[in-house]
């Protein structure tokens, strides 16, 4: 059984922002998560690494309320919580960037950034739900520029964006709304060098704002540089909880693949 809790740098007295205990998840006959436990503390960047198909995305979707776990429990701020939907997770201030992004292709960039939390005009018009499009566009541009993405127009539909631009939209959305925790599933896979730097900066900023940050990434050198803790998932099990200072990329890969065992 996985036991990834470790007396980390963060204040042990404060309950973790998010905690998973012995979470299991199966699809049909295939058991994808075999009992994963993990804690995520405020101000800490926790990275999850693992081979393709290890179950990283599945685990994150459980935390996001997208999948219901078959077993185990989730705790938010130390209290057991049942996340029946992504809306529940958002109510707890947990925001997510999915590996497949989840943009509405027909909607504009600004509308995608504000999807589900549109800015409305002041006064009566706002009561009717009238959008404040200029402000949505202006703010979206700000956020996107902060991530290094320069767009010609914020009124084009998301489907006409390049791969990296799309990824920036998804990241912008999550970082803009998270209050408790933000979870990012390979957020920089499609990003250029500059954008990647800026996104990593934004992730550091989120941690500094006292959010719990969960980062899934295959970019091991970056992960080791950025994360406070690195947890290795292998075939549905959390097999290691590493401190980045102490390990190299080679070590992590070995653990990911189950080739050598570090002690």
């Amino acid at each position, binding site marked *: 059984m996985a036991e990834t809790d470790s007396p980390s740098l963060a204040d042990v007295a404060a309950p973790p922002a998010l905690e998973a205990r012995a979470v299991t998840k199966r699809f049909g006959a295939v058991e994808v998560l075999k009992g994963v436990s993990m804690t995520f503390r405020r101000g800490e960047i926790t990275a999850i690494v693992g081979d393709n198909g290890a179950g990283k995305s599945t685990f994150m979707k459980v935390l*996001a309320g*997208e999948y219901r776990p078959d077993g185990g429990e989730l705790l938010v701020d130390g209290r057991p919580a049942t996340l029946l*939907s*992504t*809306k529940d997770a*958002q109510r707890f201030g947990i925001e*997510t960037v*999915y590996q497949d992004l*989840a*943009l*509405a*292709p*027909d*909607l*504009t960039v600004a*509308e995608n950034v504000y*999807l*589900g*939390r*549109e800015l*409305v005009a002041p006064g009566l018009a706002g009561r*009717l*739900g*009238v*959008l404040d499009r200029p402000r949505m*566009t202006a703010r979206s541009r700000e956020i996107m520029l902060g991530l290094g993405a320069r*767009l*010609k*127009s*914020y*009124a*084009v*539909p998301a489907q*006409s964006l390049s791969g990296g631009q799309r990824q920036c939209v998804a990241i912008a*959305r999550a970082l803009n709304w998270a209050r408790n925790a933000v979870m990012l599933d390979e957020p920089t896979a499609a990003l250029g060098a500059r954008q990647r730097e800026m996104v990593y900066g934004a992730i550091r900023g989120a941690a500094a704002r006292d959010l719990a940050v969960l980062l899934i990434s295959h970019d091991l050198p970056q992960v080791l540089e950025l994360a406070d803790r690195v947890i290795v998932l292998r075939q549905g099990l959390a097999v290691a909880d590493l401190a980045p200072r102490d390990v190299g990329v080679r070590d992590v890969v070995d653990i990911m693949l189950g080739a050598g065992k570090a002690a």
Partner: protein
Amino acid sequence: MTPSTLDDGALAAATDEREPGLLGRLGGATAFWMALVLFGLVALFSAISPQNAFLNVGNFFTIALNASQLTLLALGMTYLLGARQLDLSIAANVVLASILSAKTITALMPAPGGNALGAILCGMVVALVAGTLFGLVNGLLVTRLKLSSFLATLATSTIGLGAALVITSGANVPGLPRVLQTSFGIYRIGGVVPVPVVIALAAAAVLWFFLAKTRFGVRTLAIGSAPEAARRAGIAVDRQLMTLFGMMGFLCGLTAILDISRFATTNIGGHQTDAMQAIAAAVIGGTSLFGGSASVVGAVIGALIPVVLGTGLVIMRVDSFYQLIAVGLIVIVAVAIDQRRRAGQA
């Protein structure tokens, strides 16, 4: 060999803040093109119809009157299609609501000569409530039981029609007060504008506003564009769909009111093709069958085109069999050109 910079195109300085995305998504371009087609048809019929029979205000409003019910239904369908849903039960809904409404009115009618206003108002409320409830039942089947809206509304269509027939034993409800017709259903405000036209246009204006300008519209299209993404973004998809189906039902109730007040009777057998016509009107107007893009203006135009065609061809004394062929051909040509136009732009 050293790296060689070969060119350095200047930065495109101006950022472009027009809203092509919005226009496209709201089916604006197609709606615009179809409006041209509509005006072209009107001009054509005006030019060639004998004795200016086509080109006069009275005739235009008669056309609008004949399109008013379809317009209401097409509006609701536009929202539903925008959200990647549809409602095949609208005919049954209209029939059921009109029957309940008519039953209410005839039951509450005072003695002949008395003031029927109270009874009529009650009847109207009944129609709207019944229609909305019917729509909400569809919504429940889709959101709770997770049926596809196609199957769910096909089934409620059958059930609703069955219920209507059971209630009436299959016969239309007779005895509606004539005043309903004369001072509402076919009354022309200022002697010119028929009441149903005003109602349909008002509904179109309100729904245009909500689709183009508000959160409600954006969320509707978000659900249609990518249901998963909308759900993940925390949009209460189920509640939104309930609202949309309820709204469609409300519009069915409104259509039922127009139906009984125009014709002073119910028409159980007469709405069979309503759902198809409403979907066709919406789609001709630029709304996507696969969600994410919808146009209220287009729906109004899409509802008008077949009526204009029908009226014009009758005025031209085209035999009704050839009319069918002509309507089909014109739709194909208009839509095909729109398609080519859009492909050229992309």
